[in-house]
């Protein structure tokens, strides 16, 4: 009863008219910044902190929660319609989502993203309310060796999932891994492959690379094809909303995405990107029509979108129960808490229960509000694609450049955007998949740091990597992902279903 009583009390706080206004303002602002590549919720909340200083604590935290969830929604809209991932966790959404949008199925893609985010956000928020203390104990018990095993699992599943040819996929992955080496090495403090350019010391920004490869690269290849490109973009074909089959194909990916996203998001070094990769790979493996993957499979939107929203709620688990900020946005929210003289930590639930439950309740409200706001807008959003092609791509270029420069006003950053855009064009031209480049850039440095931490703690003994049961389980899953299709063939005598091309 205690939990539900507290939650009901929290809902009362969140449902006060003024707090609803804050939530509304938050989700609108969040959606807007989520759409813009480069500018994310973390930056927005940071800039708002000084302004909200004088406001009531509950109201501003509710607004921050709205921005946080709204950012996730906005990111997927830009990914699906413009192929311009606004946030690193919506990169995977662009793969199938944009294909769907071009085939006139932008409406269902946006709808499955919105409803999937709602379902995942709701389940994960319930998880946050009910089992946060248990989840956090498990999450904390993850050591560097376990994280390394998780990365290995991500590498094996992802390299099997993207692209028609394994060698092409691996080539792209290695480009990404090489880019991941740029910058100051965290463990030794030494600069690597930065060629004395100070702007490169912090490495290659994931959103810059993603926007360049996806949006700029595509614009270049459309321009290069000129009048020969006769692929007509149909804004709407069939229903704007999801049909019966779409619902049937979305349900399980939503649920599976949630159960991947929430626990990984709750891990201190989990993040929101890895669950989206894993979800994409999983859905591709489980899909009954695998050849649709790469040509706009709705499962490839539903799963990763659910995963990234569930991860967003998962990140709040260590923040609220232990005061551990494990993402940029969480770190800023922590600063917000401290601004009101609260110290998130093991005692927060005991010292400020009304506020914590108010925040959790406002996450529910934000979720519902986003759904109500976004679904009717789907029809309007997809009209974007009716814009004549030169205008549309011109607009995408402006939009991508503004977003990148807005986040970091630097000429080097702009130069990187253009060079990676050219790289994206070349990769497309020679039929290399693009997503593994971004995946390599995200996973490479993570895997490296965790491996080196594990080895440093064990004073160089490699056996430490294979001593934890969690790590061994993850390695077993990785082996299954790698050799599963072969086993499938040996047992059934049939070739395992392999997905189609990816852009």
């Amino acid at each position: 009863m205690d939990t539900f009583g507290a939650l009901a009390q929290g809902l009362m706080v969140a449902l006060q008219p003024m707090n609803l206004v804050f939530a509304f303002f938050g989700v609108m602002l969040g959606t807007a910044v989520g759409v813009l590549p480069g500018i994310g919720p973390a930056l927005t909340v940071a800039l708002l902190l000084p302004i909200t200083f004088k406001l009531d604590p509950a109201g501003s935290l509710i607004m921050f929660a709205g921005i946080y969830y709204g950012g996730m929604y906005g990111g997927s809209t830009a990914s699906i319609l413009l192929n311009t991932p606004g946030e690193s966790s919506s990169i995977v959404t662009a793969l199938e989502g944009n294909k769907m949008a071009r085939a006139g199925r932008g409406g269902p893609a946006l709808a499955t993203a919105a409803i999937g985010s709602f379902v995942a956000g709701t389940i994960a928020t319930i998880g946050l309310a009910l089992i946060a203390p248990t989840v956090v104990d498990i999450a904390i018990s993850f050591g560097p060796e376990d994280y390394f095993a998780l990365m290995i699992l991500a590498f094996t599943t992802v390299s099997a999932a993207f692209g028609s040819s394994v060698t092409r996929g691996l080539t792209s992955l290695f480009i990404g891994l090489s880019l991941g080496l740029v910058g100051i090495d965290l463990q030794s403090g030494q600069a690597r492959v930065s060629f004395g350019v100070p702007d490169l010391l912090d490495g290659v920004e994931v959103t810059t690379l993603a926007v360049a490869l996806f949006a700029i690269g595509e614009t270049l290849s459309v321009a290069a094809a000129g009048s020969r490109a006769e692929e007509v973009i149909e804004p709407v074909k069939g229903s704007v909303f999801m049909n019966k089959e779409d619902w049937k194909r979305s349900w399980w990916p939503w649920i599976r995405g949630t159960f991947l996203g929430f626990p990984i998001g709750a891990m201190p070094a989990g993040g929101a990107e890895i669950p989206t990769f894993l979800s994409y790979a999983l859905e591709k493996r489980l899909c009954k029509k695998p050849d649709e993957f790469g040509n706009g499979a709705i499962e490839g939107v539903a799963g990763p979108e659910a995963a990234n929203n569930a991860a967003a709620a998962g990140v709040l688990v260590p923040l609220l129960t232990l005061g551990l900020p494990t993402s940029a946005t969480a770190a800023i929210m922590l600063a917000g808490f401290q601004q009101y003289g609260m110290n998130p930590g093991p005692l927060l639930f005991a010292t400020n229960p009304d506020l914590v439950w108010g925040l959790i309740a406002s996450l529910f409200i934000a979720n519902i509000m986003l759904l109500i706001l976004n679904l009717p807008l789907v029809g309007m959003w997809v009209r974007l694609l009716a814009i004549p092609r030169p205008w549309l791509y011109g607009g995408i270029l402006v939009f991508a450049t503004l977003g990148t420069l807005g986040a970091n006003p630097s000429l080097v950053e702009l130069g990187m955007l253009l060079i990676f855009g050219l790289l994206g064009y070349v990769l497309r031209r020679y039929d290399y998949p693009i997503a593994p480049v971004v995946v390599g850039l995200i996973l490479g440095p993570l895997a490296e740091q965790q491996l080196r931490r594990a080895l440093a703690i064990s004073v160089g003994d490699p056996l430490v990597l294979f001593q934890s049961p969690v790590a061994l389980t993850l390695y077993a899953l990785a082996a299954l992902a790698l050799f599963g299709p072969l086993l499938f063939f040996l047992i059934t005598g049939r070739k395992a279903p392999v997905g189609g091309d990816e852009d």
Partner: protein
Amino acid sequence: MTKMLRGAIVAAALASCIPFVGAQAEVTELKIMAPAAPGGGWDQTARSMQHVLQTDKLVSNVQVLNVPGAGGTIGLAQFVNASKGDPHALIVGGYVMVGAILTNKSPVTLDQVTPIARLTGEFEAIAVPANSPLKSMADLVAALKADPAKVSWAGGSAGGTDHIAAGLILKAIGGDPKKLNYIAFSGGGESLASILGGKVTAGISSLSEFDAQAKAGKLRILGVSSAQRLPDAPDVPTFKESGVDVEIQNWRMVAAAPGITPEQKKELSDLVEKMAKSKAWTDMLKQKGWADTYLAGDAFEKQLAADITSTAAVLKEIGLVQ
């Protein structure tokens, strides 16, 4: 809400129209650079200054500019190049910058700016999980003396304050800083998780990072890097009390542009002093949990030079700088 925002903007615009009468009539506008992304310590320092300077009507128009990257050295380089001789430009910086300049081989150094004052600082603390066999600083010293490689430390990025403090401790007890087994984490949350989870022997970070966990009984704080015991943790001995001669402060400062005249420097110093002595600033520090370690003039410049020398020495001994 938008109305409220608009109201704030109108109020700010009105405030800038009110003619200012006072001793600092010359400084009517200021640009403060925070060489970091919004949200971090330097950014919050810059924005707190902005808030206090404007609400106390010391300066009518204060802008904060964020230039993130590479431990503040990118912002520093931009500041030195673009603001030469500009009496309205300030930059916020701190101890982390001292190390970053050395490890990044930055072409621009703190010699090229005009230091004004140290404003605030945080002290380092060493924490172990509640169930750790290490009960006191003496236990940690004994473990370090037995085999420094077996003591793994979790802290912030390599070459930062945490790393330097750990190196100084090992050096102070007669160990070889090269043998320091330091595990760098990119965020406070991740490193704290590894300490709570017992993955590392000890953690080193600013006291505020450990405070809440220590009060909840999940962490034990072995020592702090201040000269005297701290009000936030009166039961925790200083390193010096435990016989480890290390004193270190992760300070934040404000500096002016290179090439300004002595009069302009004095004007800015007076302004910053007035701000640092104001009630609004004291309240701000209390609210943020920052210690007031204001130090200006020659005393600050001497301290800065000493910090740069000792940091260069220890980074060399750890092996981060050749």
